């Protein structure tokens, strides 16, 4: 609730012509109070970003330290003209789109369950959140063993005779299930926060008017929690696009499952090619920024409209 009110104040502020002395003093105090945090953030995030950008403009290979030189945007040309990069972008988009779509549906169902649970509320919520509390690498290992031909339970269950993690199709299924299993609770948590904002009176009024459960969900709940859905989708898409751990453990990028993050990792840590690896990192950063921009621009209007209504 507090965020919505704050948003309203902010939205209203530009309309006022004169800024009172008190408001100015408060603003200054505000800046002073957040200055330490801003400085620390600049040190720990801006410096690496700038450093990565500078490195991406150089031929910098730790194995050939004598050959370092400034080469402008050549590294970007190499990356963008390589079919490997575009293949990996496609793999990443595929994993992101499918896993986020499944997470949204499952997350919504779980959020409704958590919201409506009458008895054992705490137990239900805690048990749903357990996967999110497990370290991704550990979770990915447990899935890898589950899919392994000699020791896992999945191949036997599905009647698979050859190693599933050696086949492209099954590898994607395994990666997406691992992602969904791990992060659906996060999605559910964000949606649950949205559900808590929907007043019960609206549902009761609709019930009196004869709306069935589906109509109440799609006509009342979904429009009202749209901001929460957007935030959840945005967070998860940004996260999923940078997927690394699960793929690294399950397939290490073999059989056409390499993602952009693994490509960058290979250039940086295996080949020690800081120039190319940094160029890939910067490009991933730009893609993530573009995703965030599209989400906020594309759905921003509906967010504002939402605020006006409530």
């Amino acid at each position, binding site marked *: 609730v507090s965020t919505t009110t704050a948003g309203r104040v902010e939205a209203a502020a530009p309309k006022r012509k004169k800024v009172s002395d008190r408001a100015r003093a408060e603003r200054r105090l505000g800046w002073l109070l957040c200055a330490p945090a801003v400085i620390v953030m600049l040190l720990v995030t801006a410096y690496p970003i700038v450093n990565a950008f500078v490195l991406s403009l150089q*031929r910098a290979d730790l*194995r*050939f330290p004598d050959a370092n030189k400034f080469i402008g945007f050549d590294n970007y040309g*190499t*990356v963008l003209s390589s079919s*490997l990069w575009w293949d990996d972008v496609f793999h990443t988009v595929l994993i992101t789109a499918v896993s986020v779509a499944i997470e949204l549906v499952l997350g919504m169902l779980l959020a409704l369950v958590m919201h409506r649970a009458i008895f054992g509320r705490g137990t239900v919520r805690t048990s749903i959140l357990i996967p999110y509390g497990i370290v991704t690498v550990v979770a990915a290992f447990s899935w890898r063993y589950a899919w392994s031909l000699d020791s896992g339970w999945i191949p036997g269950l599905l009647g698979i005779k050859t190693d599933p993690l*050696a086949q492209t199709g099954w590898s994607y299924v395994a990666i997406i299930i691992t992602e969904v299993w791990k992060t659906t609770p996060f999605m559910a948590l964000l949606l649950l926060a949205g559900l808590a904002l929907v007043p019960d009176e609206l549902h009761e009024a609709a019930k009196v008017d004869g709306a069935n459960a589906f109509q109440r969900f799609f006509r009342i709940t979904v429009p009202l929690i749209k901001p929460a859905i957007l935030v959840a989708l945005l967070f998860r898409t940004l996260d999923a696009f940078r997927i690394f751990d699960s793929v690294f453990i399950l397939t290490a990028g*073999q059989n056409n499952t390499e993602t952009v993050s693994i490509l960058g990792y290979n250039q940086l*840590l295996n*080949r020690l090619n800081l120039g190319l690896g940094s160029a890939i990192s910067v490009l991933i950063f730009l893609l993530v920024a573009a995703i965030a921009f599209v989400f906020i621009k594309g759905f921003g209007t509906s967010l504002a409209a939402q605020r006006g209504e409530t």
Partner: protein
Amino acid sequence: MRRRGLVLSTLAVLAASLVATGCGGGNGKGPAQLNFYIFPEPSGSFEKAAKECSQQSNGAYSITVNTLPSDADGQRQQLVRRLSARDSSIDIIGMDVIWTAEFAQAGWIKPWTGARAAQVTQGTLPVPIKTATYKGKLWGAPANSNTQLLWYRKDLVRTPPKTWAQMLAMSAALAKQGKPHIIEVQGRQYEGLTVWFNSLNASAGGSIIGPTGNVTLGAPAVRAATIMKTLASGPAADPGLSQAQEDQARLGFESGNAAFEVNYPFVWPSAQENAPKIFKNMGFAPWPGVNPGQPARVTIGGINFGVGGYTKHPNEAFAAAACLRNSAHQKLYALKGGLPPTLNALYDDPSLAKPYPFKDLIRQQLNTASIRPQSPAYADISLAISKGLSPPDAINPPTIISSLTSQLKNAQDSGALL
């Protein structure tokens, strides 16, 4: 009473550890603390050797064994990451033979010169010395070596095949009779696939990278690729070939479905323990050749001991590395850990005959062995080869030279994505 006892014993432990660190710390005067980075060897033979060398040094140095990750990529990654940051705590390195050029070129290891070089090359087999040599200098002390042999079922095959063509024909004949006929090889996209290709290519008379760094793939590469393709797309292939590493090949042979296997000597004690029935009929023979009448030139593996480029105790590190690979310790690694020695004389040692009935064969193959390309960009070169040849049943031999050549050129030039 009990609580007081606990407090007292805690204090005692604390005091003891303080005393221990006080002694071991030795500010400048005590023995030099050397860190030895090596792959995890389950029998603990490296730890034993390190202890013995530390004792024999009369207080000059004390070696601590640090184990690297179990997979070769992980080992290299940890080392290069730390060495490129000039880590001075890396004193002695157990280097895979394929790292020599990369480590030497970047200045991450120190060269062995003069009397030191003479000490570790005397009596050493020539090809292992070559793996430690780059641009005319010696960069490591050959510590142990390795080479694949042909393992076969004596109950299915009377005389072992001399060439891959013969082996493929025998396998096809066995398949027709409905008998076990699979040839176990390493077909996964990883270093093992590069090793298979390199051995076939060298046996056919070819090379991959020439002395000036140019790609030298030719007709022998086509023959090598054709053999790989024929095996992978015929009855001789294991259903899991495209995922098979050394261990999958071993398990395949021990399961009894295979008639042949090319693999390292570790499969011998393993079969003895895990599959005694198969072991009874298990025979060994030279790795098959490609050209009739010519022995194969099998890829050499193994470990050379290098001295870290940024170590604070170079003199002690060289002395310790030399001790760790001396005759007594190489024998220890061979008997306990199953690692073939690099010293010629050890192959005449009768105590090696029992665990190593094939020791003469190994020495003979080491003397004609082929070396993988000695280039600072070897990791990229190997990646390009294994990517270009994976999966083996999809190899297209007529275009293999042009496709591999362009990929290898990309790999050597650090301005390309891999």
